[in-house]
């Protein structure tokens, strides 16, 4: 291995910090909503988190499909990186939704279609990450998870349109309506800034997570090809013929 292959890149950390700071300043300086008051500020982290869940799992599907087509581990690493980041942002979207729900709905959780389907999506992608731990064979692992990565994407439209198909407590889309957004322009602009900044954060995270996936694969290959004894060789086979 040369030092060029394992070059340390600092810029993603800087991008993440700047994106987080810009989102915070934008969300704290915009005027509060006339009905929800200060609580409307939660929207500027809740909605971008939910958007990133869609984007990340969409990229996982793309990486998975490309792996199944090209059989290149680079695509598998992209799928893995995006799935893990997607799980983090889905968890955040659920947690932030619960924090927003308590003072507005009077409860932390309800079995509304949007909430339930988002929770299912969260656990399916946790399962995707768990599935990757079932084998050390890089291509077997990539193939198994790629199949799930392609199939699981069906949940994105289900989650997104659940508020239209099954009306519950969760509000219907506010921005993507044909008649235009039902929010003040300053709030729409702030929300778009937050979405853009979170997307930038996602791209920066992807660079670091793919770098990590590459290193982890290199460690796995190095361990498999090293000449040292493996654990199984230290255990002797039982003598089944003894005493007969």
């Amino acid at each position, binding site marked *: *291995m040369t030092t060029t292959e*394992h070059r340390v890149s600092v810029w993603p*950390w800087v991008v*993440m910090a700047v994106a*987080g700071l810009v989102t*915070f300043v934008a*969300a704290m300086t915009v005027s509060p909503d006339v009905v929800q*008051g*200060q*609580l409307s*500020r*939660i929207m500027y*982290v*809740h909605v971008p*988190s939910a958007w990133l869940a869609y984007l990340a799992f969409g990229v996982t599907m793309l990486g998975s499909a490309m792996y199944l087509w090209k059989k290149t581990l680079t695509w598998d690493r992209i799928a893995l990186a995006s799935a893990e*980041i997607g799980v*983090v942002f889905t*968890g*955040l979207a659920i*947690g*932030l939704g619960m*924090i*927003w729900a*308590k*003072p507005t709905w009077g409860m932390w959780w309800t079995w509304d279609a949007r909430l339930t389907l988002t929770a299912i999506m969260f656990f399916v992608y946790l399962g995707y990450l768990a599935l990757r731990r079932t084998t050390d064979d890089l291509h077997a692992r990539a193939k198994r998870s790629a199949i799930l990565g392609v199939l699981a994407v069906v949940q994105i439209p289900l989650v997104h349109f659940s508020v239209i198909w099954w009306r519950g407590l969760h509000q219907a889309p506010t921005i993507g309506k044909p008649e235009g957004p039902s929010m003040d322009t300053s709030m729409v602009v702030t929300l778009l800034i937050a979405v853009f900044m979170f997307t930038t*954060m996602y791209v920066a*995270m992807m660079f*670091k*997570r793919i*770098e*990590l996936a590459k*290193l*982890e694969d*290199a*460690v796995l290959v*190095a*361990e498999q090809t*090293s000449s040292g004894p493996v654990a199984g060789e230290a255990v002797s086979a039982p003598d089944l013929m003894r005493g007969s």
Partner: protein
Amino acid sequence: MLLAAISAEQWNWVGLAYGVTYVGLVAYAASIAVRITRARNKLGETE
């Protein structure tokens, strides 16, 4: 007076939400950094 109390309580919820967001994101970013360092060290050992 009542409006100020409501606003203060709402700010508590906003604080909790942003606290969860930023602590969560920093923790995840830190976990990536730690795992990268560990992997680099392991590779240094195996090479």
